């Protein structure tokens, strides 16, 4: 028999393995989803109407055809169908991020010149980070870019307000190297949800209102920008696009049930509370309609592929595989794969909060975090910026940043 003291010891010992996600970001995300869910219920009829779906992005004639014949992809990794397959790492080796990726780590101010708190969005290059500077708590007032090579930041644009709407808040942003796009959330006096979609040149300049969506069409979950188009998906599934210069938004044919992951890829699971356990079953390249089916294993939940490597949860902890089912790995070392960053970052990295796993090399890079928290960038696509306090406590003057876009290619 065991004693009650054994039980107390087991509970306290178990608590030491508790996850430490960024709760502020998590609660904000949850609140955003609640807003979505209300809209979702209002739009129930529309949801039922889009529930039947084929597996390819097709035009009306039924032929598989490019959704964007003219666009060039900004993606840096090979699509699921192409390229030689390197052998998958057979086991995990633990290293320090500071030892193997010194060029990707830097320290930056946690506030801008006006004392506004920075919130990283994502990396633009090996040295540049796109930031939201908050004029008041969680309220983006300005977008800025910090360059770690010069140690200086510059303004991209002031974030416009809309006094006609209640609760006007800037939501998810996306970048394509030249332009940033984001949507803002608000509601009319009668409660009708409204989303304004904005763009601004990363070189600096005024924000431009591209389009406004209301009612069921306003329930945006993810956004992307690609050259002359802004693309977004809805919480209930379905991908839309509009020219960056404005015009009439168009729903991409055959995009029923799809959610943007990272341009040009979309998947068939959303980010709502009910989707967490559900595994992704396919990856769709929106530029050509190519569909890659995910070869999933039965005991794995929450599988997310973006687009070639997949991550999920198995009973024994974290789970990694390629989309075709090869290279699978189950390990307790990745047990904290969390809701912060459900998709692989750059089709390569997993962020557990205390370490980064490189799926291509099998290395688990631990971070030295003196603070009590950590975060990841807030971009719509999986952010390449991971950060935490550079000093003890909760409110540091400086962030320590790991820019995964600065990590050299896997050998």
């Amino acid at each position, binding site marked *: *028999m*065991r*004693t*009650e003291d*054994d*039980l*107390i010891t*087991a*509970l*306290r*010992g*178990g*608590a*030491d*393995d*508790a*996850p*430490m*996600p960024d*709760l*502020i*970001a*998590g*609660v*904000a*995300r*949850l*609140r*955003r989803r609640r*807003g979505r869910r209300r809209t979702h219920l209002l739009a129930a009829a529309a949801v039922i109407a889009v529930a039947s779906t084929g597996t390819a992005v097709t035009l009306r004639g039924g032929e598989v055809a490019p959704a964007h014949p003219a666009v060039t992809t900004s993606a840096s990794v090979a699509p699921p169908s192409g390229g030689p397959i390197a052998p998958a790492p057979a086991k995990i080796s633990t290293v320090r991020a500071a030892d193997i990726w010194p060029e990707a780590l830097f320290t930056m101010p946690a506030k801008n010149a006006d004392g506004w708190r920075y*919130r990283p*969005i994502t990396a633009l290059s090996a040295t540049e980070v796109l930031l939201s500077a*908050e004029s*008041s*708590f*969680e*309220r*983006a007032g300005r977008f800025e870019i910090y360059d770690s090579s010069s140690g200086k930041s510059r303004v991209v644009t002031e974030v416009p307000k809309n006094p006609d709407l209640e*609760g006007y*808040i*800037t*939501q*998810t*942003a996306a970048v394509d190297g030249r332009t940033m796009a984001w949507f803002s*959330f608000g509601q009319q006096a009668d409660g009708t949800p409204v989303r304004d979609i904005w763009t601004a040149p990363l070189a600096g300049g005024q924000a431009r209102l591209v389009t406004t969506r209301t009612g069921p069409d306003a329930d945006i979950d993810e956004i992307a920008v690609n050259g002359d188009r802004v693309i977004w998906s809805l919480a209930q599934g379905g991908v839309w696009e509009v020219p960056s210069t404005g015009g009439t938004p168009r729903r991409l044919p055959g995009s029923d049930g799809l959610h943007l992951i990272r341009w040009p890829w979309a998947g068939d699971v959303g980010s709502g*509370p009910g989707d*967490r*356990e559900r595994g992704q079953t396919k990856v769709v390249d929106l530029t050509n309609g190519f569909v890659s089916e995910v070869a999933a294993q039965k005991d794995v939940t929450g599988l997310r592929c973006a687009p070639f490597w997949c991550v999920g*949860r198995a*009973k024994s902890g974290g789970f990694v595989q390629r989309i075709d089912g090869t290279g699978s790995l189950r390990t307790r070392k990745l047990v*904290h794969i*969390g*809701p912060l960053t459900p998709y692989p970052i750059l089709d390569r990295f997993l962020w557990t909060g205390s370490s980064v796993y490189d799926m291509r090399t099998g290395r688990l890079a631990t971070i030295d975090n003196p603070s*009590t*928290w950590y975060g990841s960038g*807030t*971009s*719509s696509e999986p952010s390449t910026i991971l950060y935490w306090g550079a000093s003890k406590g*909760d*409110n540091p003057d400086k962030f320590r940043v790991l820019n995964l876009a600065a990590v050299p290619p896997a050998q």
Partner: protein
Amino acid sequence: MQRGALFKRLGGVEFEDFVRARGPALLRYGYVLSGNPDDAADLVQEALLKLSDTWRRVRNKDNPEAYVRTIMARQHISWWRRRRREHLTDDVPEGSYTDRHATGELWRELASLPRKQRTVLVLRYFEDLPDQEIADILGISCGTVRSQAFRALQTLRVRPAMLERRRT
């Protein structure tokens, strides 16, 4: 993005301060309740979302942390009701029962308990609360608290030596 920058009505930074200060402790509590890192984070975030809605009132009148912990305990049990079918297979403990006293093993076996029983144990042995307070938090009778605890201890083969001392 400013994912849901929605604390604007809540006295803003004060709420954030609370989350930053007490978040780690709440996550530990959530993890002990659920035994699963994702569920722990969900539990805490759900409870904090509710807290944020009533922040001004709770901040001034009550103990916000006790409020959050109560929400978490109740939420955990109600989730169990809702997710019962999905979680059944996950809740089978790994490995077979043995008579070893390893606390890691005991931790794993906690996953075999129904959530209500687990919650009662957590409130009693992790939070160190008297049975009457547990009953108030969970909205059940003191007798139910004792019977739930008794069954849970029996399943885990824990001898209830301290039971009398803890009763109020």
